[in-house]
């Protein structure tokens, strides 16, 4: 039996060689791909091992980490849930992160260089550096007003401080609750994710305030831009412009009418009246007269056709905003349609608020921003945001004349629902068609000034709201402005 005994060790050698060879594959050749597999719990545990900084609105956290005692130690909680999720975004072990959670990640997780001195002392004491807090520019009352007004509807609202660019409110409806996405139970996460219909692009996870699922045709709010272009080309609010019941552009195309026949049936109306009553024929003709180039370049001065982000604090990347566009109108018919915010013009509520803000702020357009301060875990201020000018799309003089016209819209025209007693409020409503037979979008852009001091500018959008959409948008805009003013 000895020969076969010895030969059986050959079988043994083969088995061990196979094991060693396979070990070389697993621990050497493919080691990196295994170690870096997203399923590696060490990566996650590391991320969850220290408390992540809170995202604050005033003195209240709208996102914070709580010690759960689970395998992943800290879990993220969002006490205001869906109201703030377009701002906070979510933080999920399965689906990554979005919003401020994503774009201020290095600050929140404590790895940013802004925490250098803290990290230095923690290295000496052997602690892991706790994440820093992020204080937002959001005004909780304005956010509540926007969120409550939008509830049950499809749309979004943005409010900014025209003088500084601080974003005071940014709400979207429908929205999603980020809490289940932060769960450490994978099933809870995936179930919630699927219920949010992430693939549709226009579900609750679409941030409409920043153009998620859009942008959308702005309708008559575009007349503010056309007015600005005209005022800077020799027109005045009292200048008479051709109007009429209908307008058939010279190169054919769709005939343009007014919303109702009682609007500017005369051959001539003043600019002020045309804007106040939202005269389509007047602005279509005005746009054609000014020329596509003039209108488009004014729109671009306000920010259209530009890739835009909301800058974060201490980060290279900002929160992306969908680009608002003018389209490229060629010929009278397309220019006429574009001048009343149809054809290929498309905007975001964010862009509308910026335009209204520029008018309110004497022509200086401020860069909207969302993060006011980075605070250490002890709430000491580590860095404060600096306000930035976005541009100077119109002169102070033009801004004054434009306000005269937009004030008339709210005091005597289509935007009366935004009135606030004792406050100078101006704005422009919009109703936009999109596709045959679909209910129209409703829009409102506006501002409020207190004794000549610009306080707030808003952009409100109600998607496919149909009849009365722009009136509701105006109401919502007024409510938000009242909340900011404390009225």
């Amino acid at each position, binding site marked *: 039996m000895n020969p076969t005994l010895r030969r*059986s060790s050959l079988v043994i050698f083969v088995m061990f060689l196979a094991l060693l060879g396979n*070990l070389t594959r697993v621990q050497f050749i493919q080691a990196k791909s295994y*170690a870096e597999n997203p399923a590696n*719990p060490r990566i996650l545990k590391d991320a969850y091992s220290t408390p992540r900084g809170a995202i604050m609105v005033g003195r209240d956290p709208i996102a914070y980490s709580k010690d759960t005692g689970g395998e992943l*130690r800290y879990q993220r909680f969002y006490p205001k849930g869906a109201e703030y999720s377009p701002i906070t975004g979510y933080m999920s072990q399965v689906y990554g992160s979005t919003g401020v959670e994503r774009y201020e990640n290095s600050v929140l997780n404590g790895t940013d260089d802004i925490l250098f001195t803290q990290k230095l002392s923690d290295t000496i004491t052997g602690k892991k550096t706790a994440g820093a807090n992020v204080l937002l520019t959001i005004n909780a009352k304005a956010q509540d007003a926007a969120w409550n007004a939008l509830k049950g509807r499809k749309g979004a609202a943005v409010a900014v401080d025209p003088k500084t660019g601080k974003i005071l409110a940014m709400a979207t409806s429908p929205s999603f609750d980020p809490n289940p996405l932060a769960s450490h139970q994978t099933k809870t996460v995936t179930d919630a994710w699927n219920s949010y219909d992430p693939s549709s692009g226009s579900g609750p996870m679409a941030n409409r305030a920043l153009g998620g699922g859009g942008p959308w045709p702005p309708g008559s709010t575009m007349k503010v831009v056309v007015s600005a272009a005209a005022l800077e080309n020799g027109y005045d609010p009292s200048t008479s412009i051709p109007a009429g019941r209908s307008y058939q552009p010279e190169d054919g195309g769709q005939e343009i009418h007014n919303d109702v026949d009682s609007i500017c049936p005369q051959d001539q109306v003043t600019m002020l009246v045309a804007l106040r009553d939202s005269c389509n024929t007047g602005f279509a003709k005005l746009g054609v007269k000014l020329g596509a180039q003039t209108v488009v370049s004014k729109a671009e001065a306000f920010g259209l056709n530009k890739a835009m982000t909301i800058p974060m604090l201490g980060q290279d990347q900002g929160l992306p905003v969908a680009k608002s566009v003018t389209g490229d109108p060629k010929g009278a018919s397309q220019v006429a349609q574009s001048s009343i915010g149809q054809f290929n013009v498309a905007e975001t509520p964010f862009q509308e608020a910026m335009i209204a803000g520029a008018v309110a702020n004497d022509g200086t357009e401020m860069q909207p921003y969302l993060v006011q301060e980075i605070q250490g875990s002890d709430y000491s201020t580590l860095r404060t945001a600096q306000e930035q000018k976005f541009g100077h799309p119109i002169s102070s003089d033009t801004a004054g004349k434009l306000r005269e016209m937009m004030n008339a819209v709210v005091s005597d025209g289509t935007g009366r629902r935004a009135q606030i007693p004792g406050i100078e409020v101006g704005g422009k409503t919009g109703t936009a068609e999109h596709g045959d037979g679909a209910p129209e979008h409703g829009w409102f852009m506006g501002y409020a000034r207190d004794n000549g001091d610009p306080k707030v500018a808003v952009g409100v959008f109600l998607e496919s709201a149909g009849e009365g959409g722009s009136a509701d948008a105006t109401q919502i805009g007024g409510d938000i402005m009242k909340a900011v003013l404390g009225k």
Partner: protein
Amino acid sequence: MPTFAQPAAAPPGATAGRRVPTRRNTELALLLFGFVVTALLSAAAQAALINTVRVDCLVLPVLVLMLGLVAHVVIRIFAPYADPVLLPLATLINGVGVVFIHRVDVPTETDSDYHKFASIGATDGLGIQQVMWTGLAVIFCCALIIVIRDHRTLARYAYTFGLAGIVLVAIPAVLPGSMSEVNGAKVWIRLPFFAIQPGELAKLALFVFFAYYLVRKREVLSLASKRVLGIALPRPRDLGPVIVVWIMSVLILVFEKDLGSSLLFLGTFVVMLYIATERKSWLVIGFVLFAFGAFAAYSLGTWLGPFRNFHDRVDIWLNPMSDPLNTTYQLSRSLISLGVGGLFGAGPGAGDPTSVPLARSDFIIATIGEELGMFGLAAILLLYLLITLRGVKAGTVVRDPFGKLLAGGLAFSMSIQVFVIVGGVTDLIPLTGLTTPFLSYGGSSLVANWILIGLLIRISNDARRPSPAGTAGGPSGPPPQLQSAATEVIKL
């Protein structure tokens, strides 16, 4: 055998008056060396885990060493010519296992309960428990060496062992799931205070029976009927025992969902059959039966309940990273651990065993692989290889065929068990629930493997022992009556 025990290989009678070295001091030195390795591992793990090295890191290694020393003394007295490497190898692997089991008890800093257990003592947790199991196992090992002075005694009870083996294997299958099933494998007997895996002991009993039976039948089984493709096939009527063991393996697979034991029994039996009959055809037949069984089980698994488990395991084996949160959770975690460990490992105590399921038992190889790296695992594999080769060596040197076949079978079974579990955890073959000898947490496995080492020690003692008085066995006791039945006499 050029390096081993030349005196023992000398013809009987020629050694009279010549002293054969017992090598017991070599054994002692190797035991101490193993202790140093274990102690260093323990100290390194403690340093990494709690940033300090305390004397208590030596508690577990010292306890294991003491158990090794007890066995050493017993061997010195009752098996003085035994192979000096077997005991130190088993003790070292056992010690490494204890250190890692204790290490898994200590949570890492990222764990939520870290602060509660940061000061876990040497005698807290399952590490000390494993030392107690080791103590029990070493007692069994020593008792075997003391009681069974000649391994041929076992042949007398071969049929009893065979029956006991089958009964032990079958018990979990007939028990209700609540009393026998843990983590999907129906291989336990669960009693109120403890649970045992009878299959671990059954394998030893069955191998004793196989050795006895195959030695008795080897002449018949090696008869060839005809040659096919240059391989001499056995007569069809002699296929009976192979078919019986094959069916038993399939039954274990179906009713206990225990692919590992199934492979272990079939593989060991086929190799013993080959050793006994010196016919390659048995290897081929065994392989064909195995391949057919595996393929059939996989195919049937798509629709037939009992094979579903096996079918799923094959799918997981083929795509281990496809569903890491659900079906491939265990294996993907294991592979990630091994990948994180890489060539050199994170270092003792520096890995994250809590992310690996069953880190103390089925997946202890992944735990060790993460912290000691590929080189550490390779070293441990070489220790197993060494045990196997020393077992085979004892088989070639021992004089009686029963001893040869038993030593060969036991040694080979150790290898195949290591192959099946390590291969499973590292995705070389479909994962099955065998224990890793001497490393895995658990009493049944430790007792069985220490008894296995005791048997090899006993056989190796007989192999190296000088036999001055010619044919009738050694000086250390009268030859058992049965000797004639188990030696070449049966050739008739």
